[in-house]
């Protein structure tokens, strides 16, 4: 007997790990990309005082001047006096939220489907009424807050984490397998006594090793740069991340089951991932989509992963409250593994 240098599962896992680590591009996509994206979006959507809304006053008469002066008191409005042609042009192109036409009655022109137009109308209305002598009957006190966990960056970081787990899981596994097939290596492996299940397991295990670092880096960045909280337990977080990683490893195996070329698998990969990029609540909440789509959106594994990550990071949810999400991801993992074992092309 001579030494075997570790069991086949260890060797298969090491193979994938070495390939990933020796590929500078892969390291960039896995680690640097999500951080750069979070940094860019975090800066773009950094919480700050809302921008002043542009309001046009039509005409240059004395009445227009007094309207401009009255609106000028409201700091959340930015007022310009314009002739009617220019005022409408700017309204149509969205460069002003509201056009005020002085006169009796006072006329507000705006697009009723635009939220900022409604807000501008409310502010302009109050300012003009007050200038005309209206008195408020109740005293009001404003208390403002900027709580951690309620900002856009707090919403975004779990979404990016989910996106990253999906992307690296599917690309990492799908690409590697198709490349192995394209290089004739899969056939060579099958000609050896290698167990097919160990081959697949090795792919997944290598992913999981990477995952620990991947998730750690993004979370640490979120916490240090933006103070994104982890309110739930680390154990719960790990369970959700693991479930998501297994679901997307399974999907990666599934899309890689048949294609003979890297080009072929790329198309399938995008077909599977792009809908989830849009629908699963990465950059904005999926509840914005019409009610009728919600049952479908809830089925998607990335929706379950993102919802689970937000629940544990932002709400500090206990494991009991995410059982449904975990079941969803487990279903995807088991289902896609089972189907890909059946239809896998080994040559």
């Amino acid at each position: 007997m001579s030494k075997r240098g570790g069991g086949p599962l260890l060797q298969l896992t090491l193979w994938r790990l070495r390939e990933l680590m020796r590929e500078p591009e892969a390291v960039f996509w896995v680690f640097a990309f999500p951080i750069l994206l979070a940094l860019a979006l975090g800066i773009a959507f950094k919480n700050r005082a809302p921008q002043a809304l542009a309001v046009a006053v039509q005409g240059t008469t004395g009445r227009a001047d007094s309207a401009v002066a009255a609106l000028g008191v409201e700091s959340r409005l930015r007022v310009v006096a314009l002739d009617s042609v220019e005022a409408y042009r700017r309204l149509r192109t969205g460069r002003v939220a509201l056009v005020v036409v002085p006169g009796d009655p006072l006329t507000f022109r705006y697009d009723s489907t635009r939220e900022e137009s409604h807000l501008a109308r409310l502010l302009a209305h109050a300012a003009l009424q007050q200038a005309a002598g209206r008195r408020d009957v109740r005293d009001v006190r404003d208390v403002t807050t900027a709580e951690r966990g309620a900002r856009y960056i707090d919403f975004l970081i779990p979404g990016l984490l989910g996106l990253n787990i999906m992307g690296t899981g599917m690309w990492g596994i799908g690409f590697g397998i198709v490349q192995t097939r394209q290089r004739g290596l899969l056939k060579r492996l099958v000609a050896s006594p290698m167990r097919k299940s160990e081959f697949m397991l090795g792919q997944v295990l290598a992913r999981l090793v990477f995952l620990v670092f991947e998730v750690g880096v993004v979370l640490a960045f979120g916490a240090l740069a933006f103070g994104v909280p982890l309110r739930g337990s680390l154990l719960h977080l790990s369970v959700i991340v693991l479930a998501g990683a297994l679901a997307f490893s399974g999907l990666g195996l599934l899309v890689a089951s048949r294609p003979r070329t890297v080009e072929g698998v790329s198309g399938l990969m995008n077909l599977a991932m792009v809908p989830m990029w849009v629908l699963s609540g990465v950059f904005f909440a999926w509840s914005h989509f019409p009610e009728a789509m919600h049952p479908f959106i809830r089925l998607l594994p990335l929706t379950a992963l993102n919802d689970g990550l937000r629940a544990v990071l932002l709400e500090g949810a206990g494991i009991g409250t995410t059982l449904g999400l975990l079941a969803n991801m487990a279903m995807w993992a088991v289902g896609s593994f089972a189907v890909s074992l059946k239809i896998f092309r080994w040559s």
Partner: protein
Amino acid sequence: MTPDAAIRCRGLVKHYGDVVAVDGLDLEVRPGECFGLLGPNGAGKTTTVEILQGLLPPTAGSVEVLGRTWDRDRAELRQRLGTQLQETLFPEKLTVRETLQLFRSFYRRGMDVEDALAVVGLEEKRTARVKQLSGGQRQRLAIAVALVSEPELLFLDEPTAGLDPQARRQLWEIVLALRARGRTVLLTTHYMDEAERLCDRVAVVDHGRMIALGTPQELIASLGAEHVVEFAAADGAALAPAALRALPGVTAVHAEDGTVRLTVARIHETVPALMALVRDRAIELTRLVTHHATLEDVFLHLTGRSLRDE
């Protein structure tokens, strides 16, 4: 108990749609011999060895390897065979040693990775990435991978295809050393010199059928002549095949692309007669070569085509 044949197949047929790749092949490879499948590209050699290795199901026919069948003893056979397939690209980012360790781990028994490196002379490349290897070194690695389990039967599919002469010769040395140690090898090639040099017995295949079988010497002797005289004339039409066949010692005449080949039993009689004929008819020879008959000539004799045409 050792079976009397390392490989035995009967009536092997493989269809791909309408294309017949293998057309009723019977083969028997004896334990301890280096057996060659010789034929042009597209003759069905690779399909045949892939069926024998259980990688493709045959359309018809029976296959026994080491006395076992793929249906019943797949797992055991995988442990006992070693293989080098055509066109396997090993992972570029692994080192030579890591690649061998990976494959070694699949087998219950086998040799040390370092020993396998030594057999193919890649010790100094053990820490080099596969990407950095030359074509010949990659083929040697493929053979090391095939040997690392100390297989009872070794398949080598076109082991020297596409290599330069020096790399080919290095690979030949490796195969000859294996043969000297009594390993059973099934080798496919479309190089006649390779088959002649390496194989104990050769099966010549064409269009999925076996057209000749024997030791290289037997096959050459079957031509009934030991030598070949090849010449080209400035005006080739001036020499009728009938006139050439009438020369002493000639057993066959074959003209192709302006070159005439005479298969010759007694060269010392044929050459002076040919020279006399050329002088009498005032023909200018542009080329004249004589050589010992080879498997190439056997193939040409059997099919009317040369091996490298395709």
